[in-house]
């Protein structure tokens, strides 16, 4: 434990800056010129980033800083403090959140410049950054939960940002409701933790949990409940369907919230609770299975999508599944590593797609694009770099992290490795399908749009270039030991992941040999290149185009319609609920409650109508009533 007092102040300031930005824009936004609000928001995030960077350079990787702001809830036996925990894990997350967050803020200035509600947009965006920082900086589950709910709220607000469109509002509601289902799991998990360990503080919970026997029912329950929360927030089976719909929001929102940061909260949470999961092997298996299944399913759906953002959304779901698979097989550091590199290239891809959409004035269907490489060079090159990175071609960022997960998976289970490899091939295929259909061949849209195609302003292209550079070189923070380098990223996180890793290593210690790892790397790279070449053959040489919706048959149609998962949910859950609600409306609400309410009103009305006759305005009658009243009172007092 390191308590250097010079680090406390910047630590406390980290979440404060976005909050200040939020307050300035939220309270005084309408008095400020629209062009300024974006820069205020960006500066707030940049200031936060500087603080995080200061912490990163000054806090040794073995140290952690615990700041208790105040005692929040205290009664009887336990106290919950509103505290910050700054250690390598939270610093990693905060660097991603504020760093990429800043770039996306700057990008948004260009992207949203002609939107009428731009102040509102930046207000929400700052609020989101604040909650996201709170989520990762909290020193206990309750502070994390505040952030967890807060980012859910901001996600809802930003998906439904263009609230005049009903479909967008529905998407926002869907995201919110699905997140709430997950949050219930998280909440229950928290109750279990509090009830059994008497504390929500990470250190205390981990300490007490490690005293329990491995695989105890309590730990399995807690970890599974927390995982339900993670599936909601991080869009895993069965709660993933909200994420593709969430693309209704503005593209920077998709990049920031639904690709780089918020959806990775589940990964962060499981890594943070590493000891709990390490102590519950059954839960680990569940996490791995769900992750692998999501990875494969989302990749398959991604193959057939025609909306540029939907493809990226399913890609995100798939990559998140990959990360969960990594966590499930006990490779916490690898999962976090992929989280970071994924944040780079997926933010880049989303922003690139935003730039394409911007150039085409809101067109999102890739069937109406094509040949754009001639018109928007910067976007094309950066998008290409992002696609290469996600496909896992060395030496781009995605290669190192994905390869690491694959080799860990190979060592854990061959089946998981096989499925993840197939998903990776699909990823490479659909990403290059996207690239070829968007940027190559001839333009398929109307002539009117063709005339207006233009490169985006520099506020948009500069973040793209920075992210592209990060996507190229970002992987070097975690060069694998097989190449003869020390794994810097793993070492940096080791102070946090070590306890969990220690528990896991007791059960199985086998490392894959270097020769096996080389073979794995080559297999993966060759598979990726093969997929890319197949995509090239299909869409460049053969000039195939995605078929029209109606002409699809059989399995293609099923995949195109996302395996009908939404429809299945609709039939199995939503419809019965609606029927049940209608039933209750008729039976309970109308028959019982309305009857009680109306009967009360009727009785009051009747007695009012009857007693009104007493009020006849005759003074003599009143006096009579009064005298009899007195008599009755006396009689009661005397004889009863």
């Amino acid at each position: 434990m390191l308590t250097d007092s010079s680090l406390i102040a910047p630590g406390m300031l980290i979440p404060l800056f976005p909050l200040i930005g939020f307050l300035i824009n939220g309270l005084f936004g309408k008095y400020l010129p629209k062009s300024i609000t974006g820069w205020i928001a960006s500066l707030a995030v940049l200031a936060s980033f500087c603080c995080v960077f200061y912490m990163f350079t000054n806090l040794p990787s073995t140290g952690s800083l615990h700041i208790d702001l105040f005692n929040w809830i205290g009664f009887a036996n336990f106290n919950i403090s509103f505290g910050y925990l700054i250690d390598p894990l939270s610093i990693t997350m905060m660097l991603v959140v504020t760093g990429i967050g800043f770039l996306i803020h700057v990008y948004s200035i260009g992207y949203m410049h002609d939107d009428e509600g731009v102040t509102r947009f930046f207000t929400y965006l700052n609020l989101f950054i604040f909650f996201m920082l709170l989520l990762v900086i909290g020193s206990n589950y309750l502070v994390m939960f505040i952030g967890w709910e807060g980012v859910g709220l901001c996600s809802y607000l930003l998906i439904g940002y263009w609230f005049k469109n009903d479909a967008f509002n529905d998407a926002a509601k869907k995201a919110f409701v699905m997140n709430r289902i997950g949050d219930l799991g998280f909440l229950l998990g928290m109750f279990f933790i509090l009830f059994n360990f008497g504390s929500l503080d990470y250190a205390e919970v981990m300490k007490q949990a490690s005293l329990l026997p491995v695989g105890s029912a309590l730990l399995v329950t807690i970890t599974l409940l927390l995982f339900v929360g993670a599936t909601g927030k991080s869009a895993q089976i069965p709660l993933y369907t909200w994420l593709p719909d969430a693309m209704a929001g503005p593209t920077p929102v998709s990049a920031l919230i639904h690709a780089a940061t918020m959806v990775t909260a589940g990964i962060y949470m499981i890594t943070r609770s590493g000891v709990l999961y390490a102590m519950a092997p059954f839960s680990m298996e569940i996490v791995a299975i769900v992750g692998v299944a999501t990875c494969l399913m989302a990749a398959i759906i991604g193959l057939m999508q025609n909306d540029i953002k939907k493809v990226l959304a399913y890609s995100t779901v798939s990559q998140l599944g990959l990360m969960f698979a990594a966590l499930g097989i006990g490779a916490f550091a690898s999962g976090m590593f992929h989280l970071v590199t994924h944040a780079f290239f997926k933010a880049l891809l989303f922003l690139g797609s935003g730039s394409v959409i911007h150039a085409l004035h809101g067109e999102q269907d890739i069937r109406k694009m094509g040949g754009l490489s001639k018109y928007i060079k910067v976007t094309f090159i950066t998008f290409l770099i992002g696609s290469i990175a996600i496909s896992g071609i060395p030496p781009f960022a995605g290669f190192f992290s994905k390869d690491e997960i694959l080799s860990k998976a190979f060592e854990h289970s061959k089946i998981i490795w096989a499925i993840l490899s197939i998903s990776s091939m699909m990823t490479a295929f659909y990403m290059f399908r996207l690239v070829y259909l968007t940027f190559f061949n001839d333009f398929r849209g109307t002539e009117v749009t063709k005339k207006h195609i233009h490169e985006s302003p520099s506020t948009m292209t500069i973040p793209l270039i920075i992210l592209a550079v990060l996507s190229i070189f970002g992987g070097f923070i975690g060069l694998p030991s097989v190449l003869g380098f020390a794994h810097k990223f793993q070492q940096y996180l080791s102070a946090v992941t070590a306890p969990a890793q220690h528990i896991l290593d007791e059960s199985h210690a086998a490392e894959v040999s270097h020769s096996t790892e080389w073979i794995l790397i080559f297999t993966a790279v060759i598979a990726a290149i093969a997929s890319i070449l197949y995509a090239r053959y299909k869409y460049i040489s053969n000039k195939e185009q995605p078929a029209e919706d109606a002409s699809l048959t059989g399995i293609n149609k099923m995949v195109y319609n996302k395996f009908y998962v939404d429809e299945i949910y609709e039939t199995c859950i939503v419809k019965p609920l609606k029927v049940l609600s209608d039933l209750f409306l008729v039976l309970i609400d109308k028959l019982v409650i309305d009857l009680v309410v109306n009967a009360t009103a009727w009785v009051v009305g009747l007695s009012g109508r009857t007693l009104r006759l007493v009020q006849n305005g005759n003074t003599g009658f009143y006096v009579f009533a009064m005298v009899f009243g007195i008599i009755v009172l006396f009689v009661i007092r005397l004889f009863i």
Partner: protein
Amino acid sequence: MIQYLFFALSALTIISALYVVFSRNPMHSVLSLIVCFFTVAGHYILLNAQFLAIVHIIVYAGAIMVLFLFTVMLLNLNRETEPHKTNWVKIAAVIAAGMLFLTLIASLKMAGLGTYSLPHKSNIGFIQDIGVKLFTDFMLPFEISTILFMSAMIGAVLLAKKEK
């Protein structure tokens, strides 16, 4: 001797009070009420409350009854214009009052009040005694009653004034 005086006064009081109620002419009611007030003043003297007896005559017989008389004459009320209730209501009124009297007497009996005797020599009820009380213990209510009077005066003038 005093008992005879009490009986005589009481009889006069009750008869005049009943005549107030049953007289058909409002003017007779007013006059009999004055008689009633004088007999009550007599009771006060019997009870050694000379100051109150004088004040009673001045205020009630002198001021209040004059007001009543003036009003009756102003409104020109007489036997012919006097409205009357139906006989049923009149009987009911007598019965109600009788019942109230019975319950009150019953409650007085059951309350079991102690028997008092009139102290022979006391200065209670003399002007000096009341005056001291009024200007020491009851100073504040006494002053406030002046405000009550003023507001009553203003109110009376305002209400009785002809509307324009």
